[in-house]
């Protein structure tokens, strides 16, 4: 309908909107490359007069960012892997095995999705404090504390169950006749056939955990255990919000991994959101 005529004003509005969306990123990158004196001039200048790449090196060394990155990667990968394993097993049980109480369990899993994370943080914190009294490795301020609460995601179970339900029963019957057990069938047939759903779950689990904030803020208190997000937050406090070049450089490298991941798998990501309505 009237495509030729109507597209120009539409492009105009969309471009202005897109510029507004992207402006903070341009500003972040520009500031990250400016010298301290140029940064505090007014009116602000968009482009750095000289490119101070040192800001990145100085920011990286001003706080233990290497350690923060290591922690975030370990935690996000462990949570992703855990979600995939516990999710695939439970989804398989719900989709393809008959056992008493299955519907009740399913309802219980469904119900857990209605519980806001903020509601469980106080008790989870106390539980981990108790674990820590028995064994330090399972207490607060450990990898266990950062990982364990997210090792099962009801959302993941539902997502995978939808996918597992599509697999025809004949396949399972044939595999059983060939002497394939349930675990073997899950691993050799169901998992390869459900790659898109597993990839979606992995993507959301990784991104959500990488960007997670409240929980790691509460359970970590040593610098050695902080994730990148908490590290960046403390970096802001440490620099007293004056070294804006360093802060912007740090903001760039903290957000970069997920931004790159998003640019690579954009399509799956957008489809995943449209299909599930999940937000982080």
């Amino acid at each position, binding site marked *: 309908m009237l*495509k030729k005529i109507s597209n120009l004003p*539409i492009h105009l509005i*969309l471009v202005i*909107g897109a510029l507004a*969306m*992207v402006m*903070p*990123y341009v*500003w*972040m990158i520009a500031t990250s490359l400016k010298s301290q004196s140029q940064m505090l001039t*007014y*009116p*602000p200048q968009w482009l750095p007069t000289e490119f101070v790449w040192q800001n990145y090196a100085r920011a990286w060394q001003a706080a233990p960012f290497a350690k923060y990155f290591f922690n975030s990667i370990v935690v996000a990968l462990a949570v992703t892997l855990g979600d995939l394993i516990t*999710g695939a*097993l*439970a989804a*398989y*049980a*719900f989709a393809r*095995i*008959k*056992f008493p109480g299955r519907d009740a*369990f399913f309802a219980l*899993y469904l119900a*857990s999705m*209605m*519980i806001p994370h*903020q*509601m469980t*943080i*106080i*008790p*989870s*914190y106390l*539980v981990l404090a108790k674990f820590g009294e028995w064994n330090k490795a399972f207490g607060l301020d450990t990898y266990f504390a950062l990982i*364990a609460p997210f*090792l*099962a995601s009801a959302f993941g179970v539902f997502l995978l169950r939808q996918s597992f339900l599509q697999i025809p029963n004949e396949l399972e019957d044939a595999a059983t006749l060939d002497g394939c057990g*349930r675990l073997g069938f899950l691993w050799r047939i169901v998992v390869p056939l459900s790659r898109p759903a597993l990839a979606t779950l992995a993507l959301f689990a990784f*991104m959500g955990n990488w*960007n997670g*904030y*409240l929980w790691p*803020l*509460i359970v970590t208190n040593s610098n050695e255990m902080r994730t990148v*997000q908490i590290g*960046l937050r403390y970096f802001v406090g440490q620099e007293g919000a004056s070294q804006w070049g360093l*802060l*912007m450089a740090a*903001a760039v490298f*903290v*957000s970069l991994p*997920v*931004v790159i991941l998003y*640019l690579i798998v954009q399509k799956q990501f*957008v489809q995943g959101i*449209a*299909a*599930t*309505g999940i937000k982080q």
Partner: protein
Amino acid sequence: MTTRQIKKRELKDWLQGYAFLAPSFIFLAVFTYFPVLYAFVLSFWRWRVMRGEPTFIGLGNYEFLFTSEDFWQAMWNTFYFAGGSIPTGMAIALVIALMLNRPLRGLAIYRTAYFLPTITSLVAVSVVWLWIYHPDVGLANYLLNLVGLPSVRWLNEPRSAMPALIILGIWRGLGYNVIIYLAGLQNIPQHLYEAAKIDGANRWQLFRHVTWPLLTPTSFFILIIAVINSFQSFTQIHVMTQGGPIGSTTVIVYYLYQQAFQQFTMGYGSAIAMVLFAMILVLTIIQMKVLGPRVHYQ
């Protein structure tokens, strides 16, 4: 097969079913189901960690909560934030989605641009906006000055701190809402538009009588999700304002955090958590009643 063989096979099924469920169930039990019950129980106790043993005080925490000015200010701030960011954000998202819902050159670039803020770490985004809102040399004031408006002290003043967070909230949430709206628009059958056009409907009438009514479930879904999410806001507040100035950005989750993890009053914190839970539960039930539970994950 004999009955005994069938029985044996059934039993094996049962055991395998439970075994497959066990790993996820254990973690859900320890870190979701038990905490929910524990939070409920704790909310009836007074307990400052490291300052003595818990004391049962019945509804004491709730009495204190509902008569506390701080709590009501946190509630007001929470609703202010939701009311300020959601309707505007949804309206902008709908306009953008309507424009993107056609074969356009550069569609992928637009989509990337609009969606980028949603996936970027909220801490990083908050640090950038802290800089944008700098009262003296910030970009926000520069843009205001460019069009002849006076500078604002943004996060440094109670009056403007929440509006500053609302602008950030709209910017960050826009891409998500656009995607959901686009999905909704693509579900509207094309033949309805064709039929309406044959009846002589103009573009406004097409929107008013076809698009808008058929998008109602989508709008409703976005509304509920957005309200739930805004009720849970914490990160940007912890990074940018720490609830200030003078409590003007202390939303409910930030209040919970202060009480439970700065004052270490776990019982009182749990009572706040129960109120938050009740608010979100009501919204979730409304959503399920109206839209059915499937939209969640289907």
